[in-house]
């Protein structure tokens, strides 16, 4: 118990005094996981949209496969990406193994299924009559798709947040692809694992707190971004008093 209490007080000191090691690890974590989230979103939203808006043979199978991959273990993704990126692997010539960029690639692959699956669900949750209404109002196919995506914005936002959450909290890919090299590829989760093993609890607790604070800030920012970006006619939100 005293470990925990002294750990927390030392952790707060580490954070308040802006300990350079802590900051560096936190910054790298944010860089890697946000990049992976952004990349995954750029891939998952359009492809999820394509899957949702098109009828094709085997659509249900594809969606089931995507949903199955929600629970793919991070170490399995780590293993596959490791094999691809290793010197003798097919992508070895990029030299991405044990680099932050390699970790971004690994986390992107890890979170694409969950993001894509939830994007498809979010789009599917938009009422069928909305689609008819848009067509009837004279929307082109593209105009209709844009409106439906906007209509599903909160669901899509949840997909992105969940993807980010999975990326920043995972250890398998970060450890296997990054290698937990101090000052190079050490991120919050791998550092916590290592420091805890070495008995350095205050450092681990400090990193744990930071991890949660980052998650909070990112979620708040994404929420603000969605409500702001899609509702430039902000008066619609406050509105006139009800009769």
């Amino acid at each position, binding site marked *: 118990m005293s470990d925990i209490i002294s750990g927390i007080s030392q952790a707060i000191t580490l954070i308040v005094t802006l300990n350079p090691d802590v900051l560096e690890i936190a910054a790298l974590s944010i860089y890697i996981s946000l990049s992976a989230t952004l990349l995954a979103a750029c891939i998952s939203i359009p492809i999820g949209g394509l899957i949702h808006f098109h009828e094709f043979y085997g659509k249900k199978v594809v969606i089931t496969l995507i949903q199955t991959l929600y629970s793919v273990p991070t170490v399995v993704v780590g293993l596959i990406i490791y094999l691809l990126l290793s010197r003798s692997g097919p992508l070895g010539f990029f030299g991405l193994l044990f680099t932050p960029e390699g970790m971004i690639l690994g986390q992107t692959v890890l979170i694409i299924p969950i993001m894509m699956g939830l994007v498809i669900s979010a789009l599917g949750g938009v009422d069928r009559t909305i689609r008819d209404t848009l067509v*009837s109002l*004279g929307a082109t196919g593209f105009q209709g798709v844009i409106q439906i995506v906007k209509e599903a914005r909160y669901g899509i936002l949840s997909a992105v947040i969940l993807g980010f959450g999975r990326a920043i909290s995972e250890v398998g890919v970060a450890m296997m692809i990054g290698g937990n090299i101090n000052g190079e590829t050490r991120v919050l989760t791998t550092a916590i694992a290592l420091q805890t093993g070495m008995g350095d609890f205050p450092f681990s607790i400090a990193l744990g707190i930071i991890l949660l604070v980052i998650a909070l800030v990112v979620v708040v920012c994404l929420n603000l971004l969605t409500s702001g970006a899609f509702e430039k006619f902000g008066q*619609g939100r406050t509105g006139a008093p009800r009769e």
Partner: protein
Amino acid sequence: MIKLTGITKTFGKTEVIRGIDLEIRRGEIFTLIGPSGCGKTTLLRLLDLLETPTGGTYHFEDIDTQDPSTDLLALRRRMAMVFQKPAVLNTSVQENVAFGLKFRGVDPDVIPDRVREALERVGLFHLATRRAISLSGGEMQRVAIARAIITNPEILFLDEPTANLDPISSDTIESVIKEINRESKTTIILATHDMAQGQRLANHIGVIMDGRLVQEGTGHDIFYRPETQAIARFVGIDTILSGTITRKEGDHAFIAVCGRTIEAITSLPQGANVNLYLRPEEVSLSLPGIIDPGRSSVRNHLPGRITNIVPFGPFERVTVDCGCAITALLTRLSCEDLHLSPGTEVIAGIKASAVHVTAEVP
């Protein structure tokens, strides 16, 4: 303006529309009435080009809509539709109303004025900045109408626009519809299961049943001269009897019906087997022994005994057994005045001209 020939629509194995021929003239209000599930919605969706017909042809202003070279988007942009369940997008009321103009690439500077005009027309301008999903059902339906008319469509389709609305909201919507037709010369096709509404709004009515257009004509034709028993029942004729014409004096016919003689006006010949339709509000009831001189034009006096009285809004539906069951619709007050109750002996009075006679159909 619209010409359908032999239109059919099949979903899977279900034939929803079974061959409809229909012609709509520019500027008219046409109402489609029919029971729920008869195919009204599907027909409107076909007309709005949201569905492709399985068979038959659909010409809009001489343009064949099934011709692969026809630009359906351009055609659809000349029409507008209000759906039974109003779907508003999750944004402000004014944004919702502006969609049609935005999709057509209208100059953004003129959009606010047009939105104002459309919202004022449905009486909702004061809610322009409200979030559309927070509106009541009636308000949402009016937003949907404003959204549909803002593009000045040549034709407006309305699918049960007042279903599930309170009477006051329904009245507002009906007057808006009439005004749009009168002032903008917009052709209107409206589907409803409310016959009275169909009659209030339009002169040209089509009855659709089981995927077929079974009768087309004026309100009077459909309410008083239904062509089949099914239509008669749908338009509120409770009493349908079968009989044989025994004697004729000109068009005046004496018809043997369940052991009695009913007089009616028909051009059908003596000896013909016929159906008689009696609208319940055309049947009067009086007590035996009291001859009402004001009713001298009533040719049929059928004695009987009341079997059943059921409240029907401000009226009472009274079923009288006169050898066959005849239903009368009386105000509650007149029921009380006559002290009517099940078992009371009464005389059912029916004018000869109020009996609609057709050749017998099954």
